[in-house]
């Protein structure tokens, strides 16, 4: 972190100004309040995708992030509606719960590699959806609806976060909250990747046997990384549930899990900020194509295929030397 170059600092500063300054001003000027919701979704999906990216970083293809996003959303929703716990407290709990579940599930399934791991995580998403349908506490297919907006958060009488339901524009509040979360997530990711743990992950990505032969505790690290990855998934999902004020078993499905993975691929697997860019491009690409009506999916998928043909290593591989490190 202390070895940031001037250019990188400038980039980070620019990113801050962009998401907390330029975007709100631009939205006010355009009068497009709905954009807040779109951008918030992008931010949250990017957080979940960051988790997927992290599992890619240890050489595992993770198509199961939807499962943990769903889990996080349910944990937070149940805590808020059934136990009357503040959303801001339920958010980390949801993340931690997802992480604990990830450790329990990860211990056996992280022994799998390559396509096997990809397929089992895909199945995992399906398992969580079916479990949500079957369990009584999740209220089956009806889901949990009318979740209250996040309440106020105050420490020693100082209000840190105002009650969202009293605000004029809760969407804007969600946007800022997500912006903060996004910055925290990617700062953590950047720190992680450039730490000792990050180096160990890279060694595992290249060759697990070799890594373990030079003394890397491979089973331990991969479980830790998977737990962190699922933590992000849980946080993203919990926040999403709070914005939508409802959670259904179909909130996060196999398609969403696949999309999380695509975000990472599209942004580029070699770059920390890849998932953010990938999510932004995929989400906005899909939205922009809306005016093509029934040809939306056709054009979208054709563009994906063409993009893959032209840039098989992700969008950020376009300008590798310049973009490394900033947003």
């Amino acid at each position, binding site marked *: 972190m202390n070895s940031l170059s001037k250019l990188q600092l400038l980039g980070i500063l620019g990113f801050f100004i962009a998401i907390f300054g330029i975007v709100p001003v631009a939205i006010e000027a355009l009068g497009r309040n709905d954009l807040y919701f779109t951008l918030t979704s992008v931010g949250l999906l990017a957080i979940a995708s960051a988790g997927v990216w992290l599992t*890619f970083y240890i050489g595992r*293809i993770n198509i199961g992030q939807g499962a943990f996003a769903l889990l996080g959303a349910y944990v937070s929703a149940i805590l808020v509606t059934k136990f009357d716990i503040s959303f801001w407290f339920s958010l980390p709990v949801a993340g931690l719960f997802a992480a604990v579940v990830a450790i329990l*599930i990860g211990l*056996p*399934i992280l*022994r*799998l*590699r*390559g*396509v*096997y791991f*990809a*397929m*089992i995580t*895909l*199945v*995992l998403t*399906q*398992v969580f959806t*079916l*479990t949500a*349908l*079957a369990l009584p506490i999740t209220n089956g297919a009806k889901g949990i609806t009318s979740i209250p907006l996040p309440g106020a958060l105050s420490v020693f009488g100082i209000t840190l976060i105002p009650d969202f339901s009293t605000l004029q524009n809760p969407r804007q509040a969600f946007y800022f909250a997500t912006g903060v979360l996004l910055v925290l997530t990617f700062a953590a990711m950047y720190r992680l990747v450039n730490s000792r743990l990050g180096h160990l992950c890279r060694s595992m990505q290249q060759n697990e046997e070799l890594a373990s032969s030079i003394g890397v505790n491979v089973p331990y690290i991969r479980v830790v990384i998977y737990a962190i990855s699922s933590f992000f998934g849980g946080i993203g999902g919990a926040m999403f549930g709070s914005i939508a004020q409802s959670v259904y078993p179909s909130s996060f499905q*196999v*398609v969403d899990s*696949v999309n999380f*993975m*695509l975000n990472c*691929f*599209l942004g580029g*697997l070699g770059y920390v900020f890849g998932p953010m860019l990938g999510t932004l491009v995929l989400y906005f690409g899909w939205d922009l194509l809306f005016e093509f009506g*029934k*040809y*939306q*999916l*056709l054009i*979208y*998928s*054709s563009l*994906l*295929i063409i993009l*893959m*043909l032209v840039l*098989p*290593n992700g969008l950020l591989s376009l300008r590798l030397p310049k973009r490394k490190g900033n947003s």
Partner: protein
Amino acid sequence: MEQILANGIYLGSQYAMIALGLTLIFALMNVLNFAHGQMYVLGGFVTYTIYGQLGFPFLTGLAMSCLTLFLLGALIERFLFAPVIRRSSREESTMLLAAGLAFFFDAVILLLFGEKQRGVPKIMDGVFNWDFRLIMPYDRILICVLAIVATVSFILFMQYSKTGRALRALAQDRVAAQLMGVNVEHYSMIGFALGAMLAGLVGGLLVTITGINLGMGGPTSIKAFMMVMIGGAGVISGAIAGGIILGFLEAIGLSVLSQYGDITYLLIFVSLMIFLAIRPQGLMGKPWG
């Protein structure tokens, strides 16, 4: 009991063929074909058009399904997968391509055939009834027999034909096969096309019984993944075993657990995860694929 067994054989024979196509593509190219379920749906719609709409004989429809998917598979391999595999720095990038293709097929099917459930006239009337212990419509028996015949001929083809030998060599070791003079690019294309063709064939067979709709693609892919995982990825016998096992599990689950609601699949998924924790490479797979 007899009924459950018969249902199991019927489901298993269909599933085995879907899994065969997926595992063939995986063994040859190391590509996880997300679009497999969509290829199956496409095959079903071709038969629906030829047999159900235009009124040609059923076998013509089936043949057209195979032919269409074979050509489609060949083109996809040649112009999409081969270049991406060549240029990408990570093998997994093909997964994005496969997922993109799955979306693409969904879009094409949506535009051409719409979202509605489509069915075709029964190919055979009547119901086989053995003392009310085993009841099976004749068309199901016919489809089941056709599927078994197709599977057996596929295995014979892989065992004894020159193409089959080349494909098996390719699956075993790509470089070694190339050194022995196998035209790797050519046979990769044929292999992919054959895998797609199998998906199309099952689609064509099953459209006569369950009908076909747009939404069947994704779940079919997931089922195919499960079968491949049970049996072991990239192994033909494994795919068949996986298909039959899943078919039986589903048949037994649906009849025994029907009063508990829709938990058959939940149980199957959970037991699959436990099974894979004990034996990660599946029944017959090579360790670590």
